[in-house]
């Protein structure tokens, strides 16, 4: 995931402003806009404008240098959507989204639940678990590229564990490379999920659990009926971040496999860079980028509408 974001709870509205006083004369709005202007200008120039430009370029056949004059309408989109390599790239992104939710999520919650007690060395454990997240995807990808070749350190480790004989070619086998990629991604981001869940668990009052225990509930029952529901908002926030990150995945794939072997680990982003940048077809690359954007937007909006609706309702009434 190339974004490392936390949204402060699911509140996606600005909420009511505490100060309802109207501005004093003309200086008020001027001051307000003066505050906002720098951020707005930078944002508009380097976020909104490029995204709009991407949409414009996508309708042209353009190598990035000559004049922008070969208008081809929706041809780039048609080409992308009929290219089996791109469709499979979309599939890979969606698969990573699903796998992350289904595997990393529960795993993180489980580990967090287990670790959520006074342990000796707890701070150290938390620090160490978080280390992969701090490393860049490039460094992590490089490390694993050096660990995973045939008869490399990882294979040596497996042999030491008792697995004699040939091991699968983790990075070279088109059938396996994708799973290797997912494994490395999990290594990188599980710690983040665990820490996030641990943080969320801080908000679960212990009295509830104790009361239930007095009533004879087992540990598992307590977790299932009390802790997990209260952990809900945290899980939903993490899931949102995970989804967005999975859709935009680039660095790790580029370094670890370059999208191969035979396009088996391509993502929308690596496809875009390969065709748009390496092969100098910026119009086509822009079309791919716009498709990536539309897919992200659609999923995010659906998610906010259906999953975060409950949390939203609570947020609006909260005054912070």
């Amino acid at each position, binding site marked *: 995931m190339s974004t490392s974001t936390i949204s402060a709870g699911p509140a996606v509205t600005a909420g009511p402003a505490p100060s309802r006083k109207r501005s004093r004369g003309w200086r008020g709005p001027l001051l307000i806009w003066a505050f906002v202007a720098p951020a707005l200008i930078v944002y508009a120039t380097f976020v909104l404008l490029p995204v709009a430009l991407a949409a414009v370029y996508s309708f042209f056949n353009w190598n990035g240098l000559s004049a922008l004059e070969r208008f081809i309408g929706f041809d780039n989109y048609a080409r992308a959507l009929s290219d089996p390599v791109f469709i499979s790239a979309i599939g890979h992104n969606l698969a990573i989204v699903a796998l992350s939710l289904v595997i990393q999520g529960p795993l993180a919650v489980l*580990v967090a639940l287990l670790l959520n007690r006074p342990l000796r060395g707890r701070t150290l454990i938390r620090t160490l678990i978080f280390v992969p997240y701090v490393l860049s995807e490039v460094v992590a990808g490089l490390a694993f590229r050096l660990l995973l070749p045939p008869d490399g350190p990882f294979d040596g480790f497996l042999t030491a564990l008792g697995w004699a004989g040939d091991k699968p070619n983790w990075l070279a086998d088109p059938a396996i490379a994708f799973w290797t990629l997912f494994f490395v991604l999990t290594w990188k981001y599980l710690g983040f999920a665990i820490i996030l869940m641990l943080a969320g668990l801080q908000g679960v009052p212990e009295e509830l659990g104790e009361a239930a225990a007095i009533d004879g509930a087992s540990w598992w029952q307590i977790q299932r009926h009390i802790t997990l529901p209260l952990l809900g908002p945290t899980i939903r926030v993490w899931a949102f971040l995970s989804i967005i990150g999975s859709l935009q995945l680039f660095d790790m794939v580029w370094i670890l496999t370059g999208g191969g072997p035979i396009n088996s680990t391509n993502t929308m982003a690596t496809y875009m860079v390969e065709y748009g940048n390496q092969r100098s077809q910026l119009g086509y690359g822009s079309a791919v980028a716009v498709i990536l954007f539309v897919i992200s937007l659609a999923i995010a909006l659906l998610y906010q509408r259906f999953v975060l609706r409950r949390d939203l309702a609570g947020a609006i009434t909260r005054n912070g």
Partner: protein
Amino acid sequence: MTALNLSSRRRIDPGIPLTYLVALAVVAVTVTPVIYVILGGFRTTAQINRDPGGFPDPWVFDKYAAVFQNPNFWTQAGNSSIVALTTTAGVVVLGMLAAFVIARYEFRGRTLLFSLFTAGLLFPLTVAVLPLFTMLRSFGLLGNLLAVIAPQVAFDLAVTIIILVPFLRAIPAELEDAAMIDGAGRFAFFWRIVLPLSGPGLVTVGVLSFVKSWNAYLLPLLLLGNPATATLPVGVQYFSTAYSQDTAGVLAFTSVAMIPALLFFTLAQRRIVGGLTGAVKG
């Protein structure tokens, strides 16, 4: 809030030993690749080829020395620092200013503005990269660090504002009223009261922004061109391919590239984790 403490109830407790086991397993899986890379830099390539999984024997310091003597490394590390620090500063300053007024004051276009920034969360950087390239080339900024800083600040603003707005909204109106009564203007209120109170939020935002910028790859890759003057992640990748035959050297370079992030994290880890806790709770 303390954690759910059930150690007093043995019959419900799944077992402290199990917990330690799980913790140990997770930590082992997490840390081993990192350790391998670091130790690998202390060996020679021939050693590694003979015995990929072994310990350094003998310990060789040449590879690490070579990294520190490599002028490219220092240029790249320096560039990474400049870019990360400037990005963080820019994000914090601009984000704070904007979030402050969005959070606390009614004005026309407020909701639209907030939605505009929120939408930025959904814009993948990849979408903007190619147009940014052509745009920055026409500004003549390609190869200049600003080419990377400005877009990073812009893209981080969305996250920053989303985190800061609830923080700032939480500051009671009474404080502002009191300040007004004392004759302070809005700016003074901002400067003397709001800023200090937002410390934790700003630290969270700053740290996230710094880490993200330090680790950024795609943007510097496409916008900075020449690896000798690019940032560290780009430099590490090129080193690894240009010297691919020198496995030990690559491992040394990679682990040195890890150090700043690890150091930074160790120093700030309480803040980071604490900040995340606050953000999630709040």
